[in-house]
């Protein structure tokens, strides 16, 4: 994505927040040849031939990174493609996304891995695949971790099909540790969740739906932590949703186990009651939990025991969601609302400083999956920048979504905090005012 022929871009007058460089001041940023060329106090950079981006009154951050998305390609292009998914990512302020391997076929070999990253896919933001840990994500035989890493994989997971067998999980840790990459687990004991379509609680009982217990999540997290401790591997817990699992992660961190975790915007914003009368746009896995768990997610973000916010963007076609609740697929889209929800809930309501928000959405995710030169605006870093207005009021309407699918519970929500522009390798790939709405 380099663009040597492009004019340099000078982002002028914005408030730069780069947690990795400890910058939080009015600065100008010069982007040249796909890299950050210079960052200096506002008005001090001389760049005669540069195109100027006036960022007065706006926040300038290292490009946001979503380490958990489903782009559905290859195989389920009717839900999403790499082109439409990355367009949605750009509109949401994400300059990099990590795509999950549960495509059709599963991304379990270097050919598919390379195919996903090929320029012909039309990605407009950086795409870093997370490859399958086992062949076909069947949980039986490990994939070739080294070959997959060499072809661009930044982590390993059988997302959606949790690795239940201890030996396979142990072997995954051992293989990943040699390569310095994380094993990412969707923590769900599927032996306990057959036929379940939401959280176990008063709402599931009232609606006559089978519910997933908290223990189905926390039990796997406990087991994985034990194996991470034993192998010295890096466990990353995907989309954490329960207080019990978070407490386990917190204790393990204090004990020095290499464990990290992410939470989705919906799990720190919504609760299971919102399923209401079987609204399938509130059906996802892990399910929305009760108030105590939702509040624990907020606390975890505030105190820093949760490392990242990730969307688990999971597009599904209308005809799939327009079904009986127990038959409809799990998952919601999230790329275009993640920053707005995070700003609204954490910054505006809970007074979390913007620096911490950017850590959760950019610098921490970059570190988690080892994206060198990203998640920061230091000179020499990739010229991936997200410019946003934390106070801009707007309404999210699915009809404007760039995603091919519209399965979101946030249709019609009012937000304070909006993306102004998304810059990837020095090139503006999204600008709110030029957006074709």
């Amino acid at each position, binding site marked *: 994505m380099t663009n040597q022929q492009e004019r340099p871009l000078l982002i002028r007058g914005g408030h730069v927040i780069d947690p990795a460089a400890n910058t939080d001041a009015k600065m100008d940023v010069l982007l040249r040849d796909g890299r950050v060329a210079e960052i200096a106090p506002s008005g001090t950079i001389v760049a005669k031939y540069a195109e100027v981006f006036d960022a007065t009154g706006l926040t300038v951050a290292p490009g946001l990174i979503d380490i958990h998305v489903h782009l559905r390609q290859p195989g389920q292009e009717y839900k999403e493609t790499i082109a439409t998914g990355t367009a949605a990512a750009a509109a949401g302020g994400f300059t990099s996304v990590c795509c999950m391997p549960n495509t059709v076929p599963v991304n379990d070999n270097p050919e598919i891995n390379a195919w996903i990253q090929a320029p012909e896919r039309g990605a407009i933001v950086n795409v870093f695949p997370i490859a399958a840990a086992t062949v076909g994500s069947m949980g039986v035989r490990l994939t070739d971790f080294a070959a997959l890493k060499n072809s661009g994989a930044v982590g390993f997971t059988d997302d959606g099909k949790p690795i239940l067998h201890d030996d396979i999980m142990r072997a995954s840790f051992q293989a990943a540790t040699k390569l310095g990459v994380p094993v990412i687990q969707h923590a769900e004991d599927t032996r306990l969740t*057959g036929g379940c379509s939401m959280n*176990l*609680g*008063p709402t599931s*009982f*009232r*609606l*006559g*739906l089978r519910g997933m217990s908290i223990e189905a999540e926390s039990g796997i997290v406990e087991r994985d932590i034990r194996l991470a401790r034993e192998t010295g591997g890096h466990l990353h817990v995907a989309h954490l949703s329960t207080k019990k699992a978070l407490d386990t992660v917190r204790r393990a961190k204090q004990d020095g186990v290499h464990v990290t975790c992410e939470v989705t915007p919906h799990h720190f914003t919504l609760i299971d009651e919102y399923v209401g*009368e*079987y609204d399938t*746009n509130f059906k996802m896995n892990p399910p929305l939990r009760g108030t105590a768990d939702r509040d624990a997610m907020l606390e975890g973000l505030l105190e820093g025991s949760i490392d990242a916010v990730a969307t688990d963007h999971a597009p599904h076609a*209308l*005809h799939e969601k*327009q*079904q*009986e*609740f*127990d*038959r409809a697929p799990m998952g919601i889209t999230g790329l275009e609302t993640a920053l707005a929800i995070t700003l609204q809930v954490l910054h505006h309501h809970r007074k979390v400083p913007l620096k911490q928000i950017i850590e959760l959405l950019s610098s921490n995710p970059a570190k988690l999956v080892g994206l060198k030169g990203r998640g920061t605006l230091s000179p020499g870093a990739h010229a991936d920048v997200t410019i946003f207005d934390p106070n801009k009021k707007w309404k999210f309407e*699915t*009809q404007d979504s760039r995603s091919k699918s*519209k399965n979101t519970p946030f*249709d019609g929500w009012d937000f304070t905090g909006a993306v102004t522009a998304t810059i990837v390798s020095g090139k503006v790939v999204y600008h709110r005012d030029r957006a074709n709405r």
Partner: protein
Amino acid sequence: MRSSKSKQRGRKQKPAPSIPTGSLLAIESFSPEEISSLLKQSAAMQSQLEKSPASRRQLTNTLAGRRVALLFYEASTRTRVSFEFAAKNLGAVTTVVHAAASSIEKGESLVDTGYTIEATGAEAIVMRHPSSGAAQLMAHYLKVPVINAGDGMHEHPTQALLDAYTMLRHKKSLRGLRVLIVGDIFHSRVARSNAQLLSKMGAHVTLCGPNELLPELAATLAPGIELQRDIDAALKTADVIMMLRVQKERLSGLNLNIEDYIRDYQLTQDRMRNAKPDAIVMHPGPMIRGMEITAEVADGPQSVIVEQVANGVPVRMAVLARALGARK
């Protein structure tokens, strides 16, 4: 909403927020006044049915020529037959659609099946479906009223109405009545609808069963619900004893020992000696004699089980008249 697929980007794709007038989806969303009014209507239907052949004939004018579709995705005897007779008693034309003998088998979605039935001229749809919330889904997309004849483990509202109606034929009021519901509460849409209705009408509801079939969460179903594990203790104060079938087909994964269940929860003549002499015994059916209830109790003097089935007809007449009458 049905046209949302054909319209261009820019239309809201969410189901319409309102459901068709006259629908009966769940007791939970019904007010005590609506329940009372339906029970009164049911009594009126019954007296007109029984008064004279002429008054019975006159009833057929109520919905003369109106078209009612009965859509059954799940097996049913009493509910289907009584809905069909109820509709015919009111002069309506009925058609029964079984999932196994229709386009549903070819993979047609629930909503498309609904559009199809509506397009052929059905003015009301009575439906039973194995998925909780199926009637709600249908009602969101259709213009004609939808009557829920049982959706998964969720609700079976007309059963709760006919149960309440039956209770009122033997007891003077639902308010203050002590109703004991025994058995597989977790899997039971009948229990959910009954608990909702009885709680709204001021009855005392006690749910009884082993933990596997009656989790503590059941107490959150409606205000004032009590749980009791000991059937013999619970029997002593009950005015109404409602036995439920153990739904063997839904038990996968549960550790339930059938012999233990029979020992601890079967309603026997022996146990009935603990009960009040004027307590009535009910069962929504289908009943498995020798499992949750013995034949002696099912056929005994306190049993009103057969009467329950009979009462299904006037109650469903009232529900259909409400559904179709409201559209005029």
